[in-house]
């Protein structure tokens, strides 16, 4: 269960950082500074971490394939 919570938290963190990058994009308007680029780098790092945790969850059996697509009718 805690693994799913971590995944959801990481996903929300992705949304928060992406929103922050949008704010800096609008404020800086493509002028000097790397705030937006750095925030987007953080965003993609969080996404990679999230995917790694999902992969680990599946590999260790803690994250079952409980849903869609894998069932037979």
């Amino acid at each position, binding site marked *: 269960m805690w693994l799913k919570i971590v995944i959801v938290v990481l996903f929300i963190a992705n949304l928060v950082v992406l929103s922050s990058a949008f704010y800096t994009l609008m404020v800086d308007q493509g002028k000097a500074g790397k705030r*937006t680029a750095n925030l987007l780098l953080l965003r993609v790092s969080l996404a990679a971490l999230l995917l790694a945790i999902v992969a680990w969850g599946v590999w260790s059996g803690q994250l079952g394939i409980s*849903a869609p697509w894998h069932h037979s009718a």
Partner: protein
Amino acid sequence: MASDQTYEHYYVPHNSRLPIFASIGIFLTVFGTGHMLNDMTAGKEHSVGTWILLAGGLTMGFTLFSWFSKVIEENHKKLYSHQMDRSYVWAMSWFIFSEVMFFGAFFGALFYVRMFVVDWIGGVGHRGPSDMLWPGYTPEWPLLDTPDPKQFPGAKEAIDPWHLPLVNTILLLTSSVTVTFAHHGIKEGNRNKLIGWLALTIAFGIAFLFVQAYEYHHAYTELGLTLHAGIFGTTFFMLTGFHGAHVTIGTLMLIVMLGRAMKGHFSPDNCFGFEAASWYWHFVDVVWLGLFLFVYVLGS
């Protein structure tokens, strides 16, 4: 008292034919699509609507290309004031807002069906007439059956998330990494770094679309998972299909940015167009992460 000097000059283009072309293009696109769908429903193999749709698409493509070229040219001639720049920034904001609401509606529909409707029809709360309309209904997700299997056959099987969807997740995530490298290249004033990583990002985007097309073909021809295969097929194709359309838009944006980068349009302190396209690509990636997690992995 206000005078001409009180306000910034606000550039207004004159005598442009482009809005008329855009109206014709949109009309042909919608009319052609409607015609094509009607002919498909009637069982006709060849529809003139396909050609009308193609003509509309080409007209829109030409119009948008000409329009964007004109805007870029006007920007380079420094015809735009700060107020005009702010207008473009706000236009981007409203565009993103509409995108968020768009996907919010489809994710909302998915959550609503899965968390509430499936159980309600199964008897949680007041079942009402559903037992009469759908005898033998079992509340489960994914809901592969339909009330009338003859008219709307349900899916036989579903797609395994750990093959094609996982490949696409890795492709899109990697493309976000490469576009971020390109972003840093532009900020460091390194044009070769920008062009190289941007070209690679576009290649990943196109690869994603090819994998998705293959996945859809597999779903339709081998699994019976179609847009008509009940609520499961409908939500699946609506969410992933519109996401694919946005990947296409993002790829086109990046191709335009690549052309501009090769022409030397960007500098470290003047690159809003690129940064906006880059951000949009990250947005599309986050939407896919949401799809992968909530539609494929954490379901049920």
